[in-house]
């Protein structure tokens, strides 16, 4: 049982980190960023190229993933989402735009990095072994980094001037504007921050799970699942959703294994029942 719980916590930490960026963008701009998974993949490939191919330090590669995705996110917001949001009377236009960006990024990543699964050398060797628990040290490290990053992100949103401005935007965009918050500027920072988080987690996890050009879509779907469990647009909800999904996967795969691949079937049924009872998810409204 200790192994199942440890697996669930580790999965939960990485899932929560994946979902954070997605829920941040949704909270700030009411945009469902279908390209979130592709941004994760691009972050993974940047780390793969710099750490795996060029042999430069992992920390530098991770920083490059973060920077690359922050720039991509800022550009996407400024030149694509901002004009569409301003000029379109229909909210679904942003969804179509996000889907188009996802397909475009899929194609570009496939051309640039090829079709093969890619991996990098482990950042730390060895496996922790006890009577009831086996866990490679690199997973422990990644789990700890993920939790530290989640804590840093929450502190940044809570106590920094930028974080307060973004929270105000998430609460009430018009009121924030009337109070002097530069909506365009903080929307761009928020989108860049969301994309940066996707890039960092992609870079971090390439050391464990590798990366390939086709996994963006499935990553996005899983991230949406976590966000829906926790409540769209709520950071605490995304974190809770990530840990709940990780734990459900770990327990389900252990308990239900004799019945074949029914774990996700059960998770989806439970999600449907849960959403019919709590349509806004666990936390149900933007932070404030």
């Amino acid at each position, binding site marked *: 049982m200790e*192994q*199942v719980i440890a*697996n*669930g916590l*580790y*999965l939960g930490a*990485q899932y929560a980190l994946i979902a954070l960026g997605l829920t941040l963008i949704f909270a700030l701009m009411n945009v469902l960023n279908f390209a979130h998974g592709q941004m994760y993949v691009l972050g993974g490939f940047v780390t793969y190229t710099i750490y*795996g191919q060029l042999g430069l330090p992992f920390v530098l590669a991770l920083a490059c993933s973060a920077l690359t995705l922050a720039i991509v996110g800022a550009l996407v917001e400024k030149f694509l989402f901002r004009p569409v949001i301003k000029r379109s009377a229909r909210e679904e236009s942003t969804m179509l735009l996000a889907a188009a960006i996802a397909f475009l990024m*899929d*194609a570009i990543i*496939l051309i640039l990095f*090829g*079709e*093969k*699964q*890619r*991996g*990098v*050398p*482990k950042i730390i060797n060895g*496996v922790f*072994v006890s009577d009831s628990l*086996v866990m*490679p040290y690199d*997973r422990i490290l990644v789990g700890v980094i993920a939790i530290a990053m989640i804590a840093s992100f929450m502190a940044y949103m809570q106590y920094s001037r930028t974080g307060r401005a973004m929270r105000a935007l998430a609460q009430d965009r018009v009121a924030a504007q009337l109070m002097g918050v530069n909506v365009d500027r903080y929307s761009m920072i928020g989108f860049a921050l969301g994309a940066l988080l996707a890039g960092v987690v992609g870079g971090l*996890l390439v050391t*464990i*799970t*590798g990366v*390939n*050009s*086709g*996994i963006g*879509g*499935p*990553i996005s779907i899983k991230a949406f699942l976590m966000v829906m469990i926790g409540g769209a647009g709520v950071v605490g909800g995304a974190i809770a959703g990530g840990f709940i999904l990780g734990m459900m*996967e*770990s327990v389900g*795969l*252990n308990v239900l*294994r*004799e*019945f*074949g*691949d029914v774990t*996700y079937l059960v998770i989806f049924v439970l999600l449907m029942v849960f959403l019919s009872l709590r349509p806004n998810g666990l936390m149900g409204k933007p932070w404030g």
Partner: protein
Amino acid sequence: MTTRRSVLMGTALAAVSGLALSAGLAPATAAEKELNIGFVGVTSGPAAAWGTSNVRSMQVRADWLNELGGVKIGDDTYKINIVTFDDQKDPKRAIAGMEKMAQEGIHYVVGPNVDDGAAAVRPVAESKGIIYFPYAFPKELYTKPASNAVLGMIANYQSAPAIYKYLKENKGVKKVAFIAANESDPLSQRDGGVAAAKALGLEVVAQNDTYPNDTRDFTPVLTPIIRLKPDLLVLSGVSPGNAPLLIRAARELGYTGLISTETAHDAAVLKEGAGELADGFISVGGASTPAIRSKTMDEFIARYTKKFGEYNDESNTKVYALDYIIETLKANPKAINDVAEFKKTVDTFGAPNPYVKEGTLKYVGTTSFGQKRQLSVPMVVTQYKDGAFETLFVGEVD
């Protein structure tokens, strides 16, 4: 005054004129005969590696043959042109792809790469006169009354008994566990593997464990299986992308037994994804290892690497389909526009295998399908070691 409409019209006219001019300026190429060979398979998404290795193999071989002046079939010499269609692993798109091939008058198509796609295109192929070469294992595609599909590789129900028998006799394997992705191909391969293992008297300790194909972390999936301490862990129908992740997770959980699969894999992917943890991994390839491959295969690998930057070991098997099509058409030029002639030829066809030191290109499958509807590809069972494949043993399908 220049308006947006006039600019657009001007651009369109210029484009049309350009196309017309280029068509008119190319009488030499228009006079040259061209043989179009189709590809319908998956070249995007998580399974892109399967189809990409197919289509790239075809393109490299076609470029090579064209560079040598083309292919002489009957009295005519043809340049080979590969027409590709990405079905995105979606049976509906596979049907659309096969219809596109029919509209373009193509009679020979390589692909699709997966079971449901191959089954979906069958009505189109049969009604439009197309011979297709799937990398999919359902027997009904190749047994009568079906006659237009030719299996492009060794099926798992052909290789699995040979592998398990070898491992039972040479490595003392007694207990086997199976794990498969929750998709039609891996599940059917798992069922075939389980039947083969039981027929050999092996104890199957796990056969219901599955995972979604987009799983990134396999530790939770493998944890309960490793506790059963199997001697052999079979990754049924595992994709090249998932194999290193599964191997790494199993080894990190302390598993020390053998790991095998019946699909083809890429050494570079295993090396990057699992490193030395992949040592000993058993899979099936074509003209895979330096021990058996010819100089022609070495040149093919060099050309592939030069064209695409990196070779894919899956092409050791997938290099064959185009050569089979061309050599069969050479043997019976009437088949170029008449697939009935092609079907007549497969029963007696034989040609030297250019990719191995000793071997023959011939159609097989009589034992498995009751008719010759399979390419004879060397069944090279390989073991991964230090970044490369080593030959474990070589088998043959009849």
